[in-house]
């Protein structure tokens, strides 16, 4: 069992190591990269949502002065029907390549068709307008239920539904059907005194990172390819580029620059292989940047979905059965997060009888990408709203019904795994005890809502190397790009082991040639897994230092102990030396010390959150104002509480945006009509109150310090919490996202 230890570094709030660079403008992000002789690349994108490419003529573009190279899908190696395994499951290589540059068909407006490198970006843009593409325009399919109809236009002639292991004979837009079943749902519903079944629709939303995608590539004469870019994972860029270009990973070096937000959207590559192709063609370094419309139209948002939820309970409030139907839009190619959505939908609760069906469906929208707890927010919007309705029906407090049914250690999730020690109940108890929940809330048009959420978190591979300096500091080398303060949270775990201050660690995020394999910054894994590797590397340093102290004192290693930053001799000689002083004597005791740690830990602890929100609904305009927001979350152990709070606050606010404003608005031709930050309305600080982030600590037994991932789960509860608050305010159940003023007014019967 874990002890509730008093840590020296963990749980404190040091200034982050990369902080000064980031407040002075000195930190270099992908677009900031400069090189002598740099060319600028731009991508030509499809104006149609669905069309066959008849021909592409680049000759006029190539003739424009200043243009140095043009590439199309013809310049990509033939992908054939190869299936690539990129660490996150099998991916059809043709789909992967076609999403980089379309070969035979364009499947969404914004689909990349060709790219130009020129001496300046304006010339590259002009050249794109001189590329002549002949299209045969086809009818687009823009909504998941429409795409599932047997007579819907097909995106892929060869795509056949895989259903529970069987592949169908006829082509379809439904790529796959999955199912999870636990107990006897029919029997469970028969035992229920109240059954609520509702249908939900959620819109397509984007991660909305402020930094557009970017990539600069250069080929050396010896075939070495270097890519400087903003990415959530340098190694996954290396793998994807290697597969797409059929080029050996040993000849590719990816240099991760600082990254301006990702939230899951900067794992897939888009322009990185294109920059490499242009660099190869021109022999010069080429920088390719997206503009904001490119980001909205040409990169993966998270799916729109249709969800049906049915839940049953006894009159005492015990949930007896639950059924979920989730149909997710994958976008142009298969691969929506319906899998995780189906795994998370009822995961906060211990329900004996459950059936969940999930469908992955292609539509003429950008190929979806992960977005913070991918799939779970859509699913929770349905399940947490239905649970609220059940509680209301039975006259039970909504937090009380969560306490009555909450999942605990040993309970089985509907998709199979048994929960280890989890902290769901603790989040509900903390929400219930919070002054917010007992504050008066009686004004007209004011309402309060609650909702909970689950996200598993992942482990995966991480590598860390520690080099010990003579002055008692350490240089920590890692491969996890730092999107939200992970240099600090990783460095602090090494510092704790070695009994040194956080400021005595110099963390560096380095390129793929300079550190061991490290998976993406995603899945709420970085502080957990790379922190774990830092812990292991520091333990290795500690072991070597003990050997040196033993040598110095001519005692057996077993007689040297290390505590509070001091090595001391036990059993006989009275010797003592601080970590710092021993660092100065490494040369004379055998040379430099390097410690390394590599992990692929299986003990990622699931994360739970429970949110409470107060809203005011303006019945005249349909606008919903967030009056007060409290977000409770189990962090396991908060290494740097400020950045844990930051994750909770940021996730909650993305959820508020998803709940109230954000969606891709399409016209009948399949064109996104709001591809700018003005029209795709993300929350500004004027839309929000302070977000009260409450950290609960139920240590994860799968990590030496009890860390759970914290990044993703805070986006799961907000949509349902706000829907439940709106119901409390005006007595209307909202079942469609976003709950924008027009939908509110429709629900109120005013328009």
């Amino acid at each position, binding site marked *: 069992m874990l002890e509730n230890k008093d840590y020296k570094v963990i749980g404190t*709030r040091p*200034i*982050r190591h*990369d*902080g*000064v660079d*980031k*407040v*002075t*403008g*000195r*930190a*270099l*992000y992908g*677009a*900031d990269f400069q090189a002598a002789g740099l060319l600028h690349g731009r991508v030509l994108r499809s104006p149609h949502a669905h069309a066959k490419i008849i021909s592409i003529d680049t000759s006029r573009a190539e003739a424009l*002065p*200043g243009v140095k190279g043009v590439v199309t899908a013809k310049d990509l190696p033939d992908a054939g029907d190869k299936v690539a395994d990129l660490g996150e499951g099998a991916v059809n290589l043709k789909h992967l390549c076609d999403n980089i540059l379309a070969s035979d068909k364009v499947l969404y407006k914004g689909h990349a068709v060709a790219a130009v490198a020129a001496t*300046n970006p*304006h*010339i590259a843009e002009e050249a794109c307008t001189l590329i002549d593409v002949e299209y045969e325009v086809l009818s687009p399919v823009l909504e998941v239920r429409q795409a599932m109809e047997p007579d819907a236009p097909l995106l892929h002639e060869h795509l056949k539904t895989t259903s529970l292991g069987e592949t169908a004979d006829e082509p379809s837009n439904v790529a796959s059907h999955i199912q999870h079943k636990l107990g006897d749902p029919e029997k469970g519903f028969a035992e229920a005194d109240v059954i609520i079944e509702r249908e939900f629709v959620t819109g397509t939303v984007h*991660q*909305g*990172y*402020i*930094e*557009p995608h970017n990539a600069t590539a250069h080929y050396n004469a010896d075939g070495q390819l270097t890519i400087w870019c903003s990415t959530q994972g340098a190694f996954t860029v290396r793998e994807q580029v290697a597969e797409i270009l059929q080029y050996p990973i040993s000849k590719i070096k990816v240099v991760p620059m*600082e*990254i*301006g*937000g*990702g*939230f899951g959207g900067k794992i897939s590559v888009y322009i990185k292989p294109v920059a490499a192709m242009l660099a190869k063609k021109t022999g010069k370094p080429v920088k390719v*940047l997206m*503009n*904001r419309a490119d980001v909205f139209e040409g990169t993966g948002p998270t799916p729109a979905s249709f969800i049906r939820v049915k839940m049953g309970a006894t009159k005492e409030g015990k949930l007896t059965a639950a059924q979920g139907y989730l149909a997710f839009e994958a976008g142009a190619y298969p691969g929506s997060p319906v899998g995780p959505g189906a795994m998370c939908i009822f995961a906060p609760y211990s329900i004996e009888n459950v059936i969940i069906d999930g469908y992955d469906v292609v539509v003429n929208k950008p190929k979806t990408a992960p977005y913070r707890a991918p799939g779970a927010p859509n699913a929770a919007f349905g399940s947490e709203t239905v649970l609220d309705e059940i509680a209301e029906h039975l006259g039970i407090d909504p937090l009380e019904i969560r306490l009555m049914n909450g999942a605990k250690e040993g309970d089985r999730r509907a998709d199979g795994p048994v929960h280890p020690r989890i902290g769901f109940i603790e989040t509900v108890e903390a929400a219930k005890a919070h002054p917010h929940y007992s504050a008066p809330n009686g004004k007209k048009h004011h309402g309060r809502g609650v909702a909970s959420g689950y996200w598993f978190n992942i482990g995966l591979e991480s590598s860390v190397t520690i080099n010990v300096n003579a002055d008692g500091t350490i240089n920590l080398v890692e491969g996890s790009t730092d*999107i*939200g*303060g992970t240099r600090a949270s990783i460095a602090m775990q090494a510092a704790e082991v070695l009994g040194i201050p956080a400021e005595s660690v110099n963390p560096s995020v380095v390129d793929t040639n300079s550190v061991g394999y490290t998976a993406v910054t995603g899945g709420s894994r970085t502080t957990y897994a790379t922190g774990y590797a830092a812990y292991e590397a520091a333990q290795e340093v500690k072991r070597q230092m003990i050997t040196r102290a033993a040598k110095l004192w001519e005692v057996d290693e077993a007689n040297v102990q290390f505590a509070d930053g001091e090595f001391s001799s036990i059993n006989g000689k009275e010797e003592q030396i601080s970590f710092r002083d021993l660092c100065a004597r490494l040369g004379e005791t055998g040379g430099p010390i390097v410690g390394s740690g590599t992990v692929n830990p299986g003990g990622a602890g699931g994360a739970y959150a429970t949110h409470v929100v107060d809203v005011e609904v303006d019945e005249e305009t349909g606008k919903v104002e967030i009056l007060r927001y409290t977000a409770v979350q189990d962090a396991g152990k908060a290494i740097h509480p*400020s*950045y844990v*709070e*930051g*994750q909770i*606050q*940021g996730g*909650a*606010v*993305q959820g508020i945006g998803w709940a109230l404003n954000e969606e891709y608005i399409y016209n009948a031709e399949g064109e996104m009509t709001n591809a*700018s*930050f*003005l029209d795709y309305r*993300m*929350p*500004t*600080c*004027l839309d*929000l109150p*302070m*977000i009260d982030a409450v950290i609960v600590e139920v240590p994860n037994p799968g990590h030496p310090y009890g860390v759970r991932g914290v990044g993703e789960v805070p986006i799961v509860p907000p949509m349902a919490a706000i829907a439940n608050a709106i119901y409390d305010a005006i007595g209307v159940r909202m079942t469609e996202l976003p709950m924008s003023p027009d939908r509110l007014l429709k629900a109120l019967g005013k328009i």
Partner: protein
Amino acid sequence: MARRSHVQTTINGETVEFLCEPRQSLLEVLRDELHLTGAKEGCNNGNCGACSVILDGRLVNSCLVLGVETEGKSVETIEGLAAPDKLHPIQDAFLENAALQCGICTPGFIMSAKALLDQNPNPTEHEVRYWLAGNLCRCTGYDKIVRAVLDAAAAE
């Protein structure tokens, strides 16, 4: 290619000369011609505020100002804010409040906050939120940014 114009301006107190095409924005000039990459491009149409700089004492989106328009004017960018051995109080407040995550919006927020505090040294929370509504941050939910600006105001 259009003929490049000669422009003389003041950037962070230093006289600077550069050549630029008439169509190049101040943001492009700062980043591509002068290598002052602290101002960031998030949208290039004035919606996100990541490129905020102060032009003759007034907060502007540098993506919406042409480079040639800065002739004879004075530009303050994030690179000019800190003294050689001391951060500006707003920069300190951002670090102490953990008011940044990825940091891409941070230079814009700090310049925007400076413009606010230059004209209103003691703003209310609502005034801070109103003023900063032209800067988008997707990571923080703004809570710690607003606190940082209020703290900086109290410290100045």
